[in-house]
């Protein structure tokens, strides 16, 4: 039964992942892409603003970049190609977040990895403490009962 459930899960999970990947790679309409990619790029004039949000008057760069973005999308370039073209022209700082390449992958991996280590670390710690506590049974202390009662009251009445 357990084996069957595992098989069924595998059969259910694999197509789901495949569909998710397929859909996530698919391009949507040009306006949506223009808006979305515009939020993944930076204005290079030095204002440190997201390209699609750059709003300072007479900005020398953002209209040029936006026109290039529109043209790239019209040419049918994929997101990755657009990013590569912008990076080649303006340098890596034009991308609002590092791409998943070489050392830049570290930027993406470290925070979730640390979170996972922290969560599993806490679970391991609790388990270790529980096992240690179970190994040493507490002595009965009738005299300390009142003290225990007041402590429990204190602890439960946060």
């Amino acid at each position, binding site marked *: 039964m357990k084996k069957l459930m595992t098989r069924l899960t595998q059969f259910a999970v694999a197509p789901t992942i495949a569909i998710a990947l397929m859909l996530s790679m698919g391009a949507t309409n040009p306006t949506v892409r223009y808006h*979305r990619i515009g939020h993944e790029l930076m204005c290079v004039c030095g204002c440190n603003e997201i390209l699609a949000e750059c709003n300072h008057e007479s900005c020398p760069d953002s209209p040029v970049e936006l026109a290039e973005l529109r043209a790239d999308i019209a040419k049918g370039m994929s997101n990755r190609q657009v990013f590569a073209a912008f990076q080649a022209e303006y340098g*890596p700082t034009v991308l609002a977040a*590092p791409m998943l390449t070489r050392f830049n992958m570290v930027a993406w991996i470290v925070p979730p990895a640390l979170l996972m280590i922290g969560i599993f670390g806490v679970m391991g710690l609790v388990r270790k*403490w529980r096992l240690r506590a179970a190994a040493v049974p507490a002595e009965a202390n009738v005299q300390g009962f009142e003290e225990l009662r007041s402590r429990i009251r204190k602890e439960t*009445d*946060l």
Partner: protein
Amino acid sequence: MKPELNMPTFGSYALLLALVLSAYNLLAGAIALRQIATRSRGRFAPERLAETARRAGIACFAAVTCAAFALVWAAFTNDFSVAYILHHSNRALPWPYKFAALWSGQEGSLLLWAWLLAGYGFVVRIRHKVDVKLSAYASTILAGIQVFFLLVVNFAAPPFALVQGTVPHDGFGLNPLLQYPEMVIHPPMLYLGYVGFSVPFAFALGALMMRYPGEKWISITRRWTMVGWLFLTCGIFLGAHWAYQVLGWGGYWGWDPVENASLMPWIAGTAFLHSVMMQEKRGMMKKWNVWLIFSAFLLAILGDMLTRSGLVSSVHAFAQSSIGNWFWPFLVICIGVCLFTYFLNRDHLKSDHKLEALVSRESSFLFNNVVLMAACFTVLWGTLFPVLSEFVQGNKVTVSAPFYDRVAVPIGVFLLFLTGVGPLLAWRSTSMRSIRKNLIAPSIAALLTGIVVIAIGVRPWSIFTSTPGPFYAWMTFVLAAFVTTAIGSEFLRGARVIQRHTGKNFFASIVHLTRRNTRRYGGYLVHFGVVVIFIGLAGSAFNRSVEKTLDFHQSMTVGPYRLECLDYSEDTNPNYDSEYALLNVYRDGKYVTQLDPAKRFYQASQQTSTIVAERSTPEWDLYVVYAGQDPQTGQPIIRAHLNPLVMWIWVGVIIVVFGTLVALVPNMQAGGGGARANEKRPEERELVAAGKSGS
């Protein structure tokens, strides 16, 4: 001839005097505490020496106040012989902004920092009888920090430096972005928060140095942390509101390094305020707590350094300067002192108890802390990664909103989940029966909300098309319902008990309940405020914007609104020239309001600024920006944003502030004593029983 009062000279001398006084406070305090600790006696009795140190600290506050007054005076009297005033003020500047000039530049803001630190120190020293010895340690540590900031304002960034050569008739003016009412209160609030973390740091370090017996220090530290946290919360959200109203890009948070700098100590402070409860209630997590409060302070200093040194590029940073050369050694010294004291006295921080169950209030606090610190690390990592990348790869990269949206947002959603689950768990261990019982109502509420939100039109499955926003928004709405129901049931359970025993009506019972345990119910209010803020943040997944050039009586549509251009024109006054458009707003054909977005050009600073016009409702904000003029026709270019649920953020902040204030108020006594106190006992017993089942 009558000698003229020279305020810049007066201010400079006041700062020098403050430095001498704080140096005396540090040295005399350290010698006295050393003598007390080793039971040795010098020429003076250590108690008397410590008292002189305390008084020097109080006098230091008076001296720094004089310096701050001298700078404000120079701004009000248009004394452009002071370089700082020349660069940050002008004659036509309205008076509230002249006052704000105190913190609008590098030198002035450092003086503000020193003044607030002296002010906090003043309060600690005046209230030294709370715990004379611990206060003496805290006062000496604060004096050490004070010496650093006074050294900086005396020698590295003097606010009273004079203009060389001819003094110009008028100043260069205040940055137009800072000429906004919130800018008069946002920086002081933020600085009160940053500087506020120095006090709990000083108490925690002092307690560790003196191997403080008992747990009273933790209660003092917690209260001071709440004060700093409250101010920082106000500062951060006032800043967000300012950015929303003034920068004109339609958002309130851009994950800029300077914004991140304020978020990091806030998160560390939040983690401390949670885990400190484990120390108070169960004598656990002592080492962790000490490091959390150290981290909050160190991150505040790191944030200050990032803002000022130019290490990372930021929209908000002060001009790049060599001031980082002063901050780095200070930060290293602080870390060194913390490490040294910790390793010397870490045996004093042994836990009284160990965790007994994975499903318990204690472990929920542990998870909460792990997630909060992961969030804090993510922000720090994203802020410093460009520097790391330059060091490793030889080229800088940008780490901006898309990175945080993908990494920090899921962590935030997980935190929201823990906010709901944590209070439902009991201390020590929670039975499965109790969990089931407590989770039923919140889970049903969450499920129903999930269905309703999908029915309204939110599509969580859009995550499969690389658009994670609606998915996270949907998760937030679901969890918000879960947490709100959990909090509501806590109030309901307690209020019913009070109602039964006192006969008061429901609302009076809730007030009574809250006053009986302000920390607990104030905390729940804060959680509720956070939920409301999260709902507001989730709205950003559905932002829309339209841009159009409008002629007279032409209109544009955004969402359900139609904007019709009535007029556009120009105006001028001594401080600025402005261009504006007058727009009538209609919804479903009915007139709603009139908006007048504008763009100003400030004469003195030769800079432009956006004046956003908005109509805010709980449903959404219609946010209209005058984006400029069409160069050919001279017609206004109008950008209209429709930002859902933004008002919830500001309302949530008000609830958070209210909840924190409630938590700061001491508990109402259960009874006057004697027979009356006895009358209350059954009610208390029942409340405890209710607490056991719920929390």
